[in-house]
């Protein structure tokens, strides 16, 4: 299969598997630090009783998404790996989010808060 380079159009954009360096351990520690701080902030909201849910919940969600993003992007290497991996994972993620959001909407979940 030595002649295939000009035919495998898809591998053109995907040959980056080794064209990058994975982050250094130091970077991983930094990310873990960010995650730890975010978790601390999240947990701190537990003692803030005066914050109304309309503000608290979006803030919690944002922090959650950021943590989610950091783990997926750095620890799971989605940032560096081929985008096909991300496409499969994100399709599952988006499909699940949309389908179950509709599901909960049909049950009038959001009205009850």
């Amino acid at each position, binding site marked *: 299969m030595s002649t*295939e380079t000009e*035919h495998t159009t898809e591998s053109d954009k995907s040959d980056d598997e080794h064209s990058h360096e994975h982050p250094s351990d130091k970077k991983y520690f930094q990310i873990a630090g960010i995650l730890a701080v975010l978790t601390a902030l999240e947990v701190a909201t537990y003692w803030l009783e005066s914050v109304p849910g309309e503000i608290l919940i979006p803030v919690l969600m944002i922090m959650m998404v950021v943590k989610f993003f950091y783990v997926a992007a750095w620890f799971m290497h989605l940032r560096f790996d081929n985008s096909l991996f991300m496409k499969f994972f994100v399709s599952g993620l988006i499909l699940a989010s*949309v*389908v179950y959001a*509709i*599901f909960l909407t049909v*049950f009038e979940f959001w009205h009850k808060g």
Partner: protein
Amino acid sequence: MTQTMEPSSMETSNGENSHRPLGVYTRPKGGSGWRDWVTTVDHKKIGILYGAAALLFFVIGGIEALLIRLQLATPDGTVLGADTYNQIYTMHGVTMIFLAAMPLAAAFANYLIPLQIGARDVAFPRLNAMSFWVFLAGGIFINLSWLLGGAPDGGWFAYSPNTGIVFSPSHGMDFYAIGLQITGIASLVSGINLTVTIFNMRAPGMTLFKMPVFTWMMLVVQLLLVFAMPVIAVALFLLTFSRLFGATFFTPELGGDPLLWQHLFWIFGHPEVYILVLPAFGIISEVIPTFSRKPIFGYPFMVFSGIAIGFMGWGVWAHHMFASGIGPVSVAAFSLSTMFIAVPTGVKILNWMATMWGGRIKFSAAMLFAFGVVSMFTIGGLSGVTHSIAPADTQQTDTYYIVAHFHYVIFGGIIFGLFSGFFFWWPKVFGHKLSEKMGKLNFWVMLIGFNLTFGPMHILGLQGMSRRIDTYSPGFGFEAWNLVVTIGSFIIALSVLIFLINVITSARNARGLPPIGPDPWDARSLEWITPNPTPAHNFDEIPIVESLDEFWHRKYGSDEDGKVVRVASAEDVCQDGSAEGVHLPSPSYWPLVFAIGLPFIGLGLIYSLWFCVFGGALALMGLYAWVFEPVDDPDVDHHEPQKEDASD
């Protein structure tokens, strides 16, 4: 878990492994052929196994259908009691959907996908074997319930709380929930396997948009499986935990909502409809161009409409629940989304017709069945539109009108499509054609029986005959049509019998004759480059693909007027099956051992934990042995290169 996924051995004759002993790994031959079959990891043999097992279940499901029709042939029927009837109609649905239609599609997918994309096997051959054995184990497990105190009696849709322990005290529903969980594992694993296969194992030059429509539709199906099976898995877990451990998901007294089951079930259930029908669409998208001597009309639209159907299939599930009490806004939203899913389906029908239009159509048996899909599925599609209209559906749902609708889709669409595939690819698989004469007879008998069976059901439904009733009283105008329906169902049975006889007599007539030559149909796609029947190693050398319908383009070119002219004979184009330096994965017992463990775990959950211990130990042993077993053993004494078909 990931350790069970093995790397493929897509090795070809490049320099890297030229130092190895070359040769085809030939499977154990001779007297004890069964060992060959139970240990095989060859996608073609697994495809055949899927097909054989699924046909067996198809016959069982068909017998159940006949019993249903005997009971309903006359008013106040007494052939079956109410209890037996409920078990039989439940098992008819479960068997036909999970144990016949899905594995039949898996049979085609397994056999054909690697061939159509120019690969030697699937990405994970042993996982593929595991999928089959797990499916078979699950199918046998569900049917064991007949012998162990009664089959499931809550319908294939198993609406809670009627399937709870209070209302269904026999173990039937446990067998249903655990059995489908087991077959679900098979579907999920094979979905992942074939997805990776299609993405990763295409021959050089075969871009996604040079893949045959069949492979495309199968890709959509595999993705649907990957994303839909977990949903039914959760639903079945909730049901199992409720029945076995007293979980209160569906206990209204404590606040459990029975609609939870319905949503989870149909979030899976509607994509499932497309999981069932898209393979048939793929099959006839290969058959129609071949026998019309034209390329498929609007290839990109065929592909995109398939993707669109698969995608939109996720947004319509609650149309099964218009009468369930989900609130008018939800009903309106799902009603509209359902209507518009008709558009890509319509695009497909019209493209098939445009493919045939102006062609040189040869009405072979395969083509007749494909033709049957185009016309019969249209009826199912149109009646589908009539109940996407939610207000109309409140009259039609749960009546025989719906039964008519989905049988036009499932039988008219899927079964006709699969039969088309049988006739088309039989020579590819077995090296001889099925009798065309009997095939055509088969088609006409089936068409007549099918319409006599399911056509009158439209009328019965609009006359108000409810579904899932074990009997009806005289005087509601149901008598005459029900008799017609029953007669029709026996005509269908006759047509299936004709098919089975055809299989046997065709094989008998072919005995002793050399295998059929290459290209019996003047076909178009890559699988026909290999000899018939396909040798174990598939391709002597992986072809380099330049166009859609690669095989056809190697046979035909065009002259200066743009007219089609033959540039090469099929014999020149086809490979002769002589293998050089092909290294195939070795057979393995462990997928089978693992699969045998699962039903014992199921029995253990129902009866005694000792079964669990035994089954768990068996499954674990299978897994561990599997992990530590080499994918293919380089020390195995490989046989000399063999010519598979030119031995004389």
